[in-house]
């Protein structure tokens, strides 16, 4: 057991090394033994008899061949001595050793390295025949299990170690310290695999550990654990928060938003500032998609802390509707609630009833249309609800204008203002663009929205802080005020078309959706209902059956209860009433723990795993012997050098020609049919384009006679576009504007028969996914020679080029696709440009293993299939032009021929 030349190598069978002393003898033996003679049959041997030559000395073996053979022998001897690399990291003492392992949630991300390091320590202990015991600092899932295992020979602990998994709850160092003090075992040293995170009582534990004897602490440096903190709800957007030990890592954290069936709808990356302990990222999902999410997943760390389960609180936003005039509220086109109902019904759960009955149930949003709140009990109830975080949306009207109550965001002037009409000089007013601090910011204001009548706010000095929307003359149109945790929002017009045509516009729907998204979610269960654990996370963040220790938790205790073996992170409650208990909910911030005083610190990454070198040495010996064999053959003239050389040359030529063939496709795009996409500069979009066209090419190659080669990325300003029949152009809002050269190239491409598919990647079911793309498209359309367009119908050749299609979905569906007007006979009626918003490339995209990467929305295999079929039609359209269009006229042509 001695290190050789201070290398971290020890030998399990050191006595074999004595054989090295025999090497000089071997040298002498090899030197005097001549090489074996050649056998030659010879008829005239009689004449040779008696001619024996005078020199009978052996032919010399060349010295280097001798050295080769000695080397082989030395390698075999070294291999049989069973050397072990990186052994002997030096565990103090000679007696038994206690292995202390932090197996809380924070160890999960480093778990393979922890077990590897622990294994190598155990291997070292078992070589020197020492005993060991295992001590786990996280409370066990089995009730009554002790922290420590009995002292056994170290080799027997290895199977126990292999069965260990990290726990989904944090370590309990105070309980561990007590257990450590109470432990009866006698050890001469302790090895502590720390997770490096600070917990209460870490000091006490460290002292208890140091009391056992010398300590070696192996800890990740820096601690790599990351945790998903409770997401924030800001301006109706879900904001993902990721925590880490401050200053450890500036690598951005990738967070996936996943639905219950495992589709990931979005991926955001949260960037840590230098030395920062928390990173935030906005999840860019429209509310109705956000409501289908079931969990957030930290991509890099498979631990319970890397999963945040989203329960009903993040989804359910019940909206109560109450009209001032209950009788005519739902009258078609005229009723007060008619437009509100239609605007919100697709996105939220709507309830109607009296104010009392509505507030009895949990409610996120209450819409009052020209309804005056009566003072007294009614006002008190409403105020209580508002203080608790409700959002009250009110619409003005004749009644509320005459009787202002206390639930208004701003003071109102008596009466209302009429604009336009027979007796007025003024004209109906337009809406101004929304201010940046408004939740409506980013919505575009249609020209046709006109306000005829409104109630007027009292122009107080702080009025500007309360305005979310105003008219072009500056009069407030939507005002708000906070009350407690809740908000009051007032539309200064009616909810029907009496005072303005705002409820008739699409803007009305968007405004109401954003207001609903502002509200807080409502947990399904209330009070102290006991919710039994349904599914819990294990240490690596996988949902599974709850452990036997898990017990029910009161509904109102969620958020206050820390994660423990009794309450592991997971989903609690019956099927339609789930509440989530998350590990990150009981963590405010992560901090690094102080090392154990007096301990020798070794970073986890630098504890190299122990490795047996014998197989490598023996393999090297075999290789050397094989080399010796060939050299010997060569020396005896038995090796056909020419043949070997020919073979080698042939191999070299083959590999070279293969290389040459590979390079040809890049250099000569005309050698195959390539689909091409325009480089946007955004690496993610470009990757989607490439994967999408790759997936489409494979689909087309399987289904049709077309043989498409690898897709190609092109920059219109630099590359020659004339080789590509189809150009896919995803619109990115971040892309720089087109250069004059690129513009000329694209115009030329379209004029000479090329087809460009422009995709704004955010329409129909994917509305809002790519905000601003339409504006970019408009600016492109101003400079690009785009012909007059019509919506794509089933009569168009593109809808019949291969499959008969009635809809043309991509990742999204529902938005129209625009093609050139058919009357245009230029270019054989083949549309040079196809414009849509369905994000086709994402639907076609496949990864290297042939799996579809992006979930289609709203979803289903049918939508994916139709997306591919549209792609096939598109390729066929690009390759065959109006061929199928001509087929349509066959009956007419036949008829004409017949006459």
């Amino acid at each position, binding site marked *: 057991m001695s290190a050789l030349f201070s290398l971290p190598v020890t030998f399990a069978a050191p006595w074999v090394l004595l054989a090295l002393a025999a090497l000089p003898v071997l040298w002498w033996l090899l030197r005097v033994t001549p090489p074996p*003679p050649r056998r030659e*049959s*010879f*008829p*005239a041997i009689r*004449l040779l008899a008696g001619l024996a030559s005078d*020199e009978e000395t052996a032919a010399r073996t060349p010295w280097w061949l001798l050295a080769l053979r000695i080397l082989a022998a030395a390698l075999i001897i070294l291999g049989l001595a069973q050397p072990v690399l990186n052994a002997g990291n030096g565990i103090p003492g000679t007696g038994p050793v206690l292995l202390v392992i932090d197996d809380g949630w924070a160890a999960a991300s480093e778990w393979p390295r922890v077990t590897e390091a622990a294994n190598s320590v155990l291997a070292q202990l078992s070589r020197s025949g020492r005993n060991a015991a295992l001590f786990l600092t996280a409370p066990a899932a089995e009730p009554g299990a002790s922290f420590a295992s009995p002292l056994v020979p170290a080799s027997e602990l290895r199977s126990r170690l292999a069965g260990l998994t990290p726990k989904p709850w944090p370590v309990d160092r105070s309980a561990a310290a007590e257990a450590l003090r109470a432990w009866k075992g006698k050890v001469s040293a302790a090895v502590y695999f720390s997770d490096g995170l600070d917990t209460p009582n870490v000091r006490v534990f460290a002292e208890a550990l140091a009391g056992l004897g010398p300590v070696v602490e192996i800890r990740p440096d820096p601690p790599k654990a990351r945790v998903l903190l409770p997401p924030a709800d800001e301006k109706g957007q879900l904001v993902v928060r990721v925590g880490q030990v401050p200053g450890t890592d500036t690598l951005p954290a990738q967070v996936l938003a996943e639905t219950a069936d495992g589709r990931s709808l979005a991926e955001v990356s949260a960037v840590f500032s230098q030395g920062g302990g928390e990173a935030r990222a906005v999840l860019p999902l429209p509310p109705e998609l956000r409501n289908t999410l079931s969990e957030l997943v930290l991509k890099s760390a498979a631990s319970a802390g890397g999963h945040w389960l989203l329960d009903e609180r993040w989804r359910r936003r019940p909206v109560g509707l109450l009209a001032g005039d209950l009788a005519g509220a739902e009258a078609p086109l005229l009723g007060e609630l008619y437009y509100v109902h239609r605007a919100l019904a697709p996105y939220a759960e709507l309830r109607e009833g009296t104010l009392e009955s509505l507030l009895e149930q949990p409610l996120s949003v209450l819409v009052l249309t020209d309804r005056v709140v009566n003072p007294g009990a009614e006002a008190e109830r409403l105020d209580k609800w508002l203080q608790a975080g409700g959002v009250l949306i009110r619409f003005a009207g004749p009644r509320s204008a005459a009787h202002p109550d206390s639930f208004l965001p701003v003071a109102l002037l008596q009466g209302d203002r009429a604009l336009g009409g027979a007796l007025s000089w003024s004209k109906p007013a337009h809406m101004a663009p929304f201010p940046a601090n408004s939740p409506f910011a980013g919505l575009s204001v249609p020209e046709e929205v006109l306000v005829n009548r409104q109630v007027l706010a009292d122009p107080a000095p702080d009025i500007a802080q309360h305005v979310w929307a105003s008219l072009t003359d500056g009069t407030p149109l939507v005002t708000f005020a906070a009350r407690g945790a809740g908000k009051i929002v007032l539309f200064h017009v009616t909810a029907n078309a009496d005072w303005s045509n705002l409820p008739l516009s699409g803007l009305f729907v968007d405004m109401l959706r954003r207001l609903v998204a502002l509200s807080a979610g409502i947990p399904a269960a209330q009070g102290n209902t006991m919710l039994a654990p349904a599914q819990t996370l294990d240490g690596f963040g996988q949902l599974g059956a709850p452990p036997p220790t898990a017990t029910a938790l009161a509904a109102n205790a969620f958020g206050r209860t820390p994660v423990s073996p009794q309450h592991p992170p997971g989903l609690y409650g019956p099927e339609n009433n789930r509440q989530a208990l998350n590990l990150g909910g009981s963590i405010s911030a992560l901090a690094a723990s102080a090392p154990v005083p007096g301990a020798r610190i070794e970073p986890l990454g630098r504890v190299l795993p122990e490795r047996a070198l014998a197989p490598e040495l023996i393999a090297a010996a075999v290789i050397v012997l094989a080399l010796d064999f060939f050299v010997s053959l060569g020396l005896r003239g038995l090796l056909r050098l020419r043949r070997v050389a020919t073979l080698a040359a042939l191999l070299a030529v083959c590999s070279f020609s293969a290389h040459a063939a590979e390079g040809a496709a890049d250099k000569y795009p005309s050698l195959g049919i390539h689909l091409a996409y325009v480089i946007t500069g955004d690496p993610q979009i470009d990757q989607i384009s490439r994967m999408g066209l790759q997936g489409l090419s494979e689909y087309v190659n399987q289904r049709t006679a077309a043989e498409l080669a690898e897709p190609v990325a092109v920059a219109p300003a630099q590359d020659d576009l004339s080789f590509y029949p189809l150009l896919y152009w995803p619109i990115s809002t971040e892309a720089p504007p087109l250069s004059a050269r690129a513009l000329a190239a694209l115009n030329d491409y379209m004029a000479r028969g090329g087809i460009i598919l422009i995709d704004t990647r955010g329409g129909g079911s994917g509305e809002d996914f790519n905000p601003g793309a339409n504006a970019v498209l408009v600016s492109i359309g101003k400079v690009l020679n785009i012909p007059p367009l019509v919506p794509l119908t089933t009569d168009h050749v593109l809808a019949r080029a291969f499959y008969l299609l009635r809809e043309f979905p991509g990742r999204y569906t529902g938005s129209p696709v625009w093609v050139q007007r058919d009357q245009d006979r230029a270019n054989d009626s083949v549309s040079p440009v196809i414009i849509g918003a369905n994000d086709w490339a994402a639907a076609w995209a496949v990864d290297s293993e042939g799996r579809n990467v992006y979930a289609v929305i709203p979803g289903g295999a049918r939508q994916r299939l139709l997306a591919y079929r549209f792609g096939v039609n598109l390729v066929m359209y690009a390759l065959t032009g109006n061929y199928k269009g001509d087929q349509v006229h066959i009956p007419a042509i036949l008829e004409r021929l017949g006459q």
Partner: protein
Amino acid sequence: MTSFQAARRAEALAATFPPLLVAAQRVAATVLQGVHGRRRPGSGDAFWQFRPFVQGDLTSRIDWRQSAKSDRAYVREREWAAAQTVFLWRDASASMRWHSPLAQEEKRTRAELLLLALAALLHRGGERVQLLGVARPRQVSAAGSLEWLAELLAEGVAGEDNVLLSAPLPRHARVVLIGDFLAPLEEIKTVLTRLAGIPVTGHVLQVLDPAEMLLPYEGRVQFVGLEREGEMLVSRAEHLREAYQRRLRAQIDGLAELCAAAQMTVSVHRTSEPPQAALLGLYMALAGQ
């Protein structure tokens, strides 16, 4: 030997012997045939006389051109080329079944090729041929029986030196001996003395492989004899070359002396050389006696 094995051998024989025969005939065709006139009518190529047609002659033998000159029918007779039996022997020992990388074929193959070619030439001259040292010795005269000879050679296993010591040979017969004659000169002398005592004359052709002439080996070589002479390890074969060549020269010269004493001519043939030269030499040697 079972009939099955015999059939196998016949099959192998059929596979090997046509090329041998063709080669023999091709070689024989290059040598001009000599004339052995016997000054009397008989089978031959040269015209001898016209004689009147008698009962019993084949009508096809009538010379119509001569007959047309008179009333009688004449038959053309040719001069009889008298056949002498030539006894042919080739060494069939194991040492003949060998060739070095320097030569294309074994010494025995070359010996049998020359023997067959000589037989073909002799047949063409009307001579008779008898093989010594074969299982079924028999006089053969017809030209078409070359296949028969080849078959006899192929199955011949009784080719040992003592055949020449015991074979019944007529006096003044002609023998042709083809072999490597690497045996000790005393043994050769015994045979030649017996032949000279009968007496017979003839020719000795020593067929040697070029490797036997040159000893082209280098380095450490273990030589193995073909006739159970044992093995011999030589560390530097190239150092033995000169001494070996001296010994070989002595062997060749000794053989020549013995042959001269026995009234026989001798020549040496290397298997790396074309067989035509050796055949011509053989033929001239026979014609000269």
